[in-house]
């Protein structure tokens, strides 16, 4: 190249080199982001704080697009609940505020009331153990959606299951049964709760209704766990009676259920709903066998 040419031609940028630099810079920033991100995954990053806790303010800030914001907050609630449950030491401090924001942004988001109430009320570690907050949430839901009778069912359920206030539960089930479109079993349920509140069979009917009605997998699993625990509790009661009868007949306590099978009091070795054989505890009472997945704390 002559000097004259070199001076007259505008200097070209080395494009290949620039592209390579661009790609490297992109990869470097991603690596940096990844490094700082993994440094944050300790307890500090586990829970994102609620910078704005007022649903009303958020609704104003959304400039009318509060429906979409409610969906985002609902998704955030679900993610928060799941993350806390898996954390091993759940606190659920933000569950109530998140649900309040979600339902203020969209007062007709029924799933938020129903899901929220169950998991606010459920005892730790499965839920937040705050039935009073669950009642508040459902009452707000009923005011915003007076035609939706299932919220009455949920309200009655919390009175029954978590607060053991059977009179209030019966009253709520009866009020719910009078809502338009309410199914007939709500009246039966009201009567059953009023007459036999606290009995395992009544609780079984309630959980079976929830199991049948829900389309949500998390709620379904929870209902199933409760149903299995209730079934096991009933079977343990029956097995205790059989053990007492055996002791009365033979004059000595049974060391295992094999003794009862041999005596013809049981047809086969009893198993709990998870398939694990029951055992006779050192105190002579029937109990769950080792490895059983049944959680009897759900019953009490």
């Amino acid at each position, binding site marked *: 190249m002559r000097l004259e040419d070199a001076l007259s031609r505008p200097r070209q940028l080395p494009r290949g080199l620039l592209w390579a630099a661009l790609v490297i810079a992109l990869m470097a920033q991603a690596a940096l982001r990844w490094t700082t991100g993994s440094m944050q995954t300790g307890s500090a990053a586990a829970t994102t704080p609620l910078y704005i806790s007022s649903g009303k303010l958020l609704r*104003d800030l959304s*400039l*009318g*697009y*509060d*429906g*979409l914001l*409610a*969906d985002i907050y*609902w*998704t955030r609630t*679900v*993610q928060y609940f799941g993350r806390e449950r898996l954390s091993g030491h759940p606190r659920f401090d933000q569950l109530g505020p998140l649900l309040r924001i979600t339902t203020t942004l*969209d007062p*007709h*988001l029924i*799933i938020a009331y129903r*899901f929220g109430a169950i998991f606010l009320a459920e005892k730790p570690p499965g839920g937040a153990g705050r039935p009073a907050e669950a009642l508040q949430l459902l009452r707000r839901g009923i005011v915003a959606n007076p035609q939706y009778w299932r919220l009455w069912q949920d309200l009655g359920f919390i009175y029954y299951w978590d607060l053991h206030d059977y009179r209030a539960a019966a009253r709520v089930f009866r009020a719910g049964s009078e809502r338009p479109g309410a199914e007939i079993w709500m009246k039966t349920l009201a009567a059953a709760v009023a007459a036999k509140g606290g009995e395992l069979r009544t609780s079984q009917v309630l959980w079976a209704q929830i199991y049948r009605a829900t*389309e*949500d997998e*998390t709620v379904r699993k929870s209902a199933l766990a409760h149903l299995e625990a209730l079934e096991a509790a009933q079977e343990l009661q029956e097995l205790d009676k059989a053990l007492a009868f055996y002791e009365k007949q033979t004059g000595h306590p049974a060391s295992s259920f094999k003794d009862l099978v041999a005596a013809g009091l049981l047809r086969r070795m009893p198993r709990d709903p998870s398939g694990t054989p029951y055992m006779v505890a050192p105190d002579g009472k029937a109990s769950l066998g080792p490895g059983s997945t049944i959680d009897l704390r759900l019953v009490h």
Partner: protein
Amino acid sequence: MIHRISSIARHTFKQSVRDKVLYNLIVFAFLLIAASILFGKISVDIQRIILVNLGLTAIAIFGLLIAIFIGISLVWREIDRRTLYNILSKPVARWEFVLGKYLGLLLTLLVNTAIMAAGFYLALFYQDRRFQAQDVASLEAIYFILLELALMVGVALFFSCISSLTLSAVFTFCVFIIGNLLADIRWFGSETHSALVSAITTFLYYLLPNFSLFNVIGSAAHGAPVAGYLLVSRSLYALLYAAILVSASILIFEERELQ
């Protein structure tokens, strides 16, 4: 007269197409597909509600952005490029020019919204492999979005006639934000217990366009239909207010000295 106005409207529409305004449809389609897949995986039981909320919000926001950014440059651009003098040297009245520009942008938004609405309904059908009776509510919400856009174009056009491009954008955004918070502003005014402040906020409440009247996306997501009297009264409100804005723009533009 009608021929001249429609020519300007057609030209404005073609100009928008040439400016690749309709490219936003690709972003809309991508957003709708990606978000429905993402939210379907991480949320619980509200996939359809999310799709309706997201789809309708996207239709409204894309429309509003086009209305604002194209609206504020409707008149300014013709002056800046000096094409306005060419147009006005022909037998075209100034009011015909302004009205044609307004209708042209409305046509652009109508086509854009119609295509997005078709995509949105396609996504709804894809999700459940069928339509539901409550999907009619989304159509009503789209109609309300169009009314809102008609107002927004009017606001942008008005500021385009009296101010520079940047200031027009700022003013138009401000009117949109205030127009969504009018009820709160009036309430704040009454809470001050000052007769003067209360009177000012009440005056603003009745003077400025109330955009919150046109947002029914939340209820559409739950399939709640809009009452017939609301459809009529809000259509009349939008028509009346848009007519006021276009008339005010024409009056200002008629008085304006063009050099």
